[in-house]
């Protein structure tokens, strides 16, 4: 039965849609970051779920998923740091120069 075979990848598709909806409606960057992670998880599920054979799962997509997860976490970490710095900057005492360079430039 198709649905049974496709259960996990379909769940992935739903996650993609959900995550996207969250991304669209959540107006805080950190929440958006979270939503993007949900989308990513959905994609990984599709990738893995469609690589299932009769008795085992294809190691190739597994490897791709692991790579994807690592890339995702790297980006999430950077994103979180960026969100934090933006928030810091907006609350900096001298709000005027907030969005300019960080003062690192000569």
């Amino acid at each position: 039965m198709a649905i049974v075979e496709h259960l996990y990848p379909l769940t992935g598709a739903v996650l993609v849609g959900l995550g996207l909806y969250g991304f669209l409606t959540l107006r805080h960057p950190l929440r958006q970051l979270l939503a993007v992670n949900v989308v990513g998880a959905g994609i990984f599920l599709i990738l893995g779920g469609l690589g299932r054979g009769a008795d085992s799962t294809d190691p190739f997509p597994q490897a791709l998923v692991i790579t994807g997860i690592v890339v995702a976490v790297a980006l999430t970490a950077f994103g979180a740091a960026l969100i934090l710095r933006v928030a810091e900057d907006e609350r900096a005492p001298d709000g005027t120069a907030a969005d300019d360079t960080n003062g690192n430039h000569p």
Partner: protein
Amino acid sequence: MTVAPSLLLPVVILWPILLALLCLLPKLGPRMLLALPLAPLPALAAVFLAPRDQTLSVTWVLLDGGLRLTEPGVLFLSGAAVLWFWAGVYALRYMRGDPRARTFALFWMLVLAGNLGVFLAADLASFYVFFALVSLAAYPLVIHDRKPASMRAGAVYIILAVIGETALLAGFMIGAHAAGGTILIDEIRDSLAAPRADPLVLWLMIAGFGIKAGLVPLHVWLPVAHPAAPVPASAVLSGAIVKAGIFGLVTFLPWGSAWPISGTLLALAGFSGLFAAALYGAMQGNPKTVLAYSTVSQMGLLMGVMGAALAAGLSAASVLPAVALYALHHGLAKGALFLGVGVAGKARGVVRGLVIAALAMVALSVAGLPLTAGALTKSAIKGSAGDFGATLIGLSALTSGLLLARFLFTLPKAEKEDRLPGLMVVPMVALAAAALALPWSLYAAVTGKAPYGTIDFLALGVSAWPLGLAAVLVIAALGIGLRAPSLPEGDLLGVVSRVSARAVAAAQAAASVRASEKPVENGQTLPELAEGLERLERLINDHTATSVSLILIALGLFAALT
């Protein structure tokens, strides 16, 4: 003749131009007045030495044209050369001490070069060059004294001159084209004589030359411009320069082929000028103006005759010698009269009487007193004028007589005792003598018959009745103390200038309105659009919009791919 005499022809033109260039030298400039009489000497030499009707082709210059001296050209050239010479002599005394003597000398030379060149040109280009030189270089002579009236006169002069030039150029082009692109005057004239020639060429040429020659109603510049110039300049303007126009007609009109309409129109214009100008001139107060009108009148006569001859299709040989002779006489006589104005203004008492007497002689000749040179030339020309024309010419003695009488009475008196300079008297006398004598001596050579083969005094007397009537009228008027009314100079000019002034003012007003209506540049154009763009961009910069677009594009692409 060891040297090819035809080489004289370029010298005729180049020599005055060289003198003109010398005027430009700072040290030499003002002294060039002394050279004025020298300028026409090569022309005089050419009159005697240069071969007739032999074209000296000049390559590399202009459009590869040539110079040559035609039979009528000789008469024009000789008359002009003589006048220029004596006027030059006169001028070197008259203009002495003038602050603008250098300018005067410079343009005198240039006009002279052009004027003589016109008579020598064998091709359109050089003819046009010389004609334009005469027209344009004469302007500084007209406005020499820089008085407001002169400036106005100059303005009228230059405007009409330019219009005339333009008309001529247009006529020349069409003519040259009709003749297959040639620029040789003879060929163009021949092609005009062809039955299917374009009358437009003729009209353009008549207009162009007519302006120069004072053809009514294109004459309006003449009565104001000629008097404005210094006396010697007036003399050459009226005596020689107008002849350039006449010579143009002589050269270009297609003699030998009948142009009834064009010829009649020209005749009408000419003859109406003959009378109208004379009558109007008779009511002028300034002797030079009177003389200028006289010029208009006399030239009207000439052109009227030419028009009649053209209408009748007379051949060149039958018309031109007489015309040339008439022009010669008129040029010399008019020169003498103009110079006389200057002389009379410096003479008193008996001397003045003598001067007036001499001038009266010349004037009577111009008016056509029988047995004078003027009558001789008139009789020569009557043959070409047709019956009606001849009658008119005969009648014109009345108006001419009145006019010239008026001239004599308007002559200025000397303010203070002054020594009459010989250098001014001699030219006047010489010119008067030449005017009175030369036609006699040339008559036979030109017309081929002896003057007054048989003198019929009775007929002569009868034919002089208009002049007699004029004399009676003048005497009567003097007797009852009637003064001729003083009309403003320039007849039609007043109307024209008023209308044009109004038009210019209107145009300027319109222009200034347009200028003020110009939208302010650099302002924010279409503020709504700018704002809309701003909002659109802000929307796009939002990532929600981007994501939605992403979804839509993905769906759209999918749809497009399916």
